[in-house]
């Protein structure tokens, strides 16, 4: 499979009134054609920030301060407005977290679906026909075209968002916590739709804070903590053999109905990104942290086995202690 997206050394800072928030720092990864990659992490870990940067849609006061986002050989961050506009929605598209606010309340969903196609040059009557088909594909009756967003439920609205995303069979779909606002049953049906898109060759870039949601359908998982990519590997590698203590903690924090194992919370809070901890950013909460090393030296992201990258001084646990 070929390479679709290559992110190199991406850093995004938010210039707020109370200081510079380092939302993401030195993030590098690839997305292959037709794969499903999931980004997990706590709130504020930078997973959404990176996703927005890939679309070159970092909301102000955020700014990409360094790095490259190579999508099909072109650096997204260096494209002109018009070139970007032509790629967005057609080659790569995005589904947002909150379906309640991601559709314009004053216009019918058909209107919005059709517009998504006409802005890329599809004639209006053809777009209308396609919008009907798309609605059917996401299991909504085509007469919903004339409904306003407030007449639909949250799950139905998210289906509409996905139908819009499907309009052009994009190469990359960025789904920024698309199921967070929905209940579990609806959540599953939305995930099925994303799976369908993947089956048609779209790479799925999925962002979630729920690692259990990631395990079932992803090919690879990327774990972010405090603006840094701390571990990246295939699902098996991450689940069976988590090497970063934070990944381990995340997995242990998932409740399991069938075991006696207690749910473990991660002690402490995520750091203040205006002034992140020196050394490894996880060291104040890490059970393995070693004074003189972890609090001074920042671990590099390195490949410890094939496809499996981790940024930790003691991958897999302390060996010499």
């Amino acid at each position: 499979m070929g390479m679709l997206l290559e992110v190199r050394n991406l850093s995004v800072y938010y210039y707020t009134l109370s200081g510079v928030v380092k939302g993401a720092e030195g993030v590098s990864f690839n997305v292959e054609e037709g794969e499903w990659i999931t980004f997990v992490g706590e709130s504020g870990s930078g997973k959404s920030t990176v996703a927005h940067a890939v679309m070159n849609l970092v909301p102000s006061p955020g700014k990409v301060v360094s790095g490259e986002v190579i999508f099909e050989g072109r650096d997204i961050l260096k494209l002109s407005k018009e070139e970007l506009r032509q790629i967005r929605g057609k080659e790569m598209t995005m589904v947002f977290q909150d379906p309640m606010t991601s559709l314009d309340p004053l216009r019918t969903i058909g209107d919005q679906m059709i517009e998504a196609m006409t802005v890329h040059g599809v004639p209006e009557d053809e777009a209308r026909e396609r919008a009907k088909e798309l609605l059917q594909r996401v299991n909504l009756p085509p007469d919903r075209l004339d409904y306003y967003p407030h007449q639909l439920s949250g799950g139905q609205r998210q289906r509409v968002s996905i139908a819009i995303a499907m309009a052009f069979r994009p190469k990359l779909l960025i789904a920024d916590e698309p199921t967070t606002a929905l209940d579990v049953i609806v959540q599953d049906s939305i995930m099925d739709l994303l799976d369908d898109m993947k089956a048609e060759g779209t790479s799925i870039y999925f962002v979630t804070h729920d690692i259990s949601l990631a395990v079932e359908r992803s090919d690879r998982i990327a774990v972010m903590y405090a603006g840094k990519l701390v571990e990246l590997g295939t699902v098996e590698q991450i689940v069976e053999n988590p090497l970063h203590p934070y990944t381990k903690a995340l997995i242990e924090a998932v409740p399991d109905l069938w075991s006696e194992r207690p749910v473990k919370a991660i002690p402490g809070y995520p750091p203040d990104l205006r002034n992140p901890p020196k050394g490894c950013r996880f060291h104040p909460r890490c059970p393995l942290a070693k004074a003189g090393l972890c609090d001074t030296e920042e671990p590099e992201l390195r490949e410890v086995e094939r496809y499996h990258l981790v940024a930790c001084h003691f991958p897999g646990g302390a060996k010499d202690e």
Partner: protein
Amino acid sequence: MMVIEGFVKLLRERKPGRGLFIFGFSIVLIVILMAIFAPWIAPHNPTEISADVFQPPSWKHPMGTNNLGQDVFSRIIWGSRVILYVVAVATTLSIVIGVPLGLLSGYRGGKIDRVLSMVMDSIYSFPSLILAIVIAVVLGPSPINTAVAISFVYVPTYFRMVRGQTLSLKGQLFVEAARALGVKDWETMKKYILPNVLPTVLVVFTLSVADAILTEAGLSFLGLSVTPPTPDWGYDLRVGQPFLLDGYWWLAFFPGVMIMLLAMGFAMIGEAINERLSLGTR
């Protein structure tokens, strides 16, 4: 179209604001009808001078006659044309200028925003009546110049309101989603932001119309609007004012009452709409 539907709704539904709306709307409607049908309603020629000066209200002259023997009632009816014309032109101008600038400023941000905001804030910081007087003096007395002077004063009101709304709408997910779909910037402004701003523009419009009427009356009171003998409420108020002490109260009283009623009518409509709109979001 939506505005008309909204008006019909306000008239029909028994909800808070209905009474206010009906009262305000009737006043405004009567004045508008007066202006349209002035040639047929007015019993006398408003500019015709006669020997019957200072006649108190009677059947022949329902509001009496003034110092030149002109029929005050006819002047009131014809005078409604000037004030409505000036106010309509003035508010249209300030909306046409203020709303797009506010959209641009809020949506684009950056330098354009800073420059525009600075200019608008400096206009806003002047006392509005004094600024309008200065502009009207510079442009010279005529109804259209008065309208320009008034519109200049109200542009910042629309600008600031639209800019603020645009800023908050820009952060909404559906606007970001539109960008993620590759919708052009000006299309986003036109289709996604403008319609969401319009309800507030409507409220500001009705409230500022009331204010604009008082400003117009003030300017023509100072002789900066029409030239005699054109009938005009503000001007007639001034003409009648020196004769108050002589007991000829009807010269100043009726124009004054009309100015007050019209301003009140618009203020009531604005208040009613405001009440209904905020009811929906509460």
